């Protein structure tokens, strides 16, 4: 991806967990980028080859899934009217994807009118991964998900789990009741309102699909990073995560749009280079371990320091 549209995540010199959410107006949960066709092709291929890894749902989610589908098609057609249209004739809805030259028709809440589950269908038209969190009287539960581009986690494992226990392995996340607070924040999001936060990690090679299930394939790459190839191999991975309160069923749609930027591209922006360097340099060891950076942190920092030294020389 080019660095023109890349959502650079660092604003301060040191990284710390925070609920760095901001409210969105209009409350759109989806973004179409120049990589749309490429990523949709990859997503559909993954869904075809590994459906049970990439899509999971509980029966309780079906009403909300319908709401998600109608919402996704409505928002796409409102945000990108030249790319998508969404119309209703009597009971039948028609969604047209002009980018892919495709059409979906369905009758709202009639499961016989479509061949896939609603969220599985809707997700095939967006770059985002879609997660449905059911708002129950005893917590937020992951009740459905279409997840093709996870950063080292397993949808199959977390299905049916409560928000807090899903995040259990994140180091330091329970300090000062942080995770409870985030849970409470989510439970108070108002209907038809969307919030956005960014999360980051590092991926070796330009690979969006890094599920825990295939760790054996992509995790090995971490050993191949050298100071010489870091610019090309190491990618800053940013997830733009949006939380939307669905008005009818009162559940939460969690959309994740993943962006990758190689260090080669990142260093072209001097401000980003500086912030990236300071954040990685001061990163706690347990977070570095958790994000899988420890193995090649030295090589990566070596590359960044060398680049900074060269730039300084040129600026003199």
């Amino acid at each position, binding site marked *: 991806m080019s660095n023109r549209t890349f959502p650079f995540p660092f604003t301060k010199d040191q990284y710390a967990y925070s609920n760095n959410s901001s409210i969105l107006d209009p409350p759109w949960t989806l973004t179409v980028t120049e990589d749309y066709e490429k990523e949709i092709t990859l997503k559909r291929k993954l869904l075809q080859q590994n459906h049970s890894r990439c899509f999971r749902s509980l029966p309780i989610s079906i009403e909300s899934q319908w709401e998600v589908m109608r919402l996704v098609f409505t928002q796409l057609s409102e945000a990108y009217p030249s790319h998508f249209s969404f119309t209703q004739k009597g009971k039948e809805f028609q969604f047209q994807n002009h980018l892919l030259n495709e059409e979906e028709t369905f009758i709202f809440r009639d499961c016989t009118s479509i061949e896939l589950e609603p969220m599985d269908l809707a997700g095939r038209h967006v770059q985002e991964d879609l997660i449905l969190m059911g708002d129950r009287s005893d917590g937020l539960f992951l009740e459905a998900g279409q997840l093709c581009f996870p950063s080292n986690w397993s949808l199959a*494992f977390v*299905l049916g*789990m*409560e928000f807090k226990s899903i995040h*259990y392995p994140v180091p330091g996340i329970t300090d000062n009741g942080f995770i409870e607070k985030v849970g409470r924040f989510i439970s108070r999001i108002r209907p038809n309102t969307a919030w956005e936060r960014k999360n980051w990690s590092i991926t070796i090679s330009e690979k969006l699909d890094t599920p*825990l299930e295939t*760790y054996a394939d992509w995790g090995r790459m*971490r050993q191949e990073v050298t100071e010489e190839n870091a610019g090309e191999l190491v990618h800053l991975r940013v997830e733009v995560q949006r939380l939307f309160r669905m008005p009818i069923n009162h559940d939460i749609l969690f959309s994740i749009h993943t962006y990758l930027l190689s260090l080669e591209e990142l260093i072209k922006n001097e401000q980003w280079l500086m912030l990236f360097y300071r954040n990685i340099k001061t990163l706690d060891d347990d977070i570095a*371990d958790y994000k899988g950076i420890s193995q090649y942190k030295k090589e990566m920092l070596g590359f960044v320091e060398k680049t900074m030294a060269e730039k300084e020389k040129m600026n003199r």
Partner: protein
Amino acid sequence: MILKTIILTDQNNMERACDRKNDIQQAGGNCRILGLEEGIDLEKELSFQPLGAQILIIAEKDLIQNLRQLAIKAGFKQKDITLIHTGGSFNAFCSQCHHIQTFTQQKEFDCANCHQTIEASDHFSAYHQAYLAYPVFTQKNQSDETKG
């Protein structure tokens, strides 16, 4: 407030269940044993339990996940359910192929389905009633780096 506890148990664990019932009653609680007998319509029995009741399931490990699902279906919340299973083993969820199998003391073992060497972590899913197991590779130190 009257605390109501239902003990759901199989015949093998009836004695244990009775001990528990005595403990609960001595502490002033209200308790009833629901035994797994032949011909019992468990789904119906469970759904007629009073609102606000807690359920304690004491059973063989293989049975416990089914019983738990029935309790959830009847309307018990996750936090209303306590499980005690006999046998002293635990479940591991293979992160590579999603197969669930039991393990005892040894935390590192081969998955019976995909044969990958895996290691159980302490990340527990109440839904699957299993611990997430990460792959272990022969290269040294790598298993520590996989947790996500």
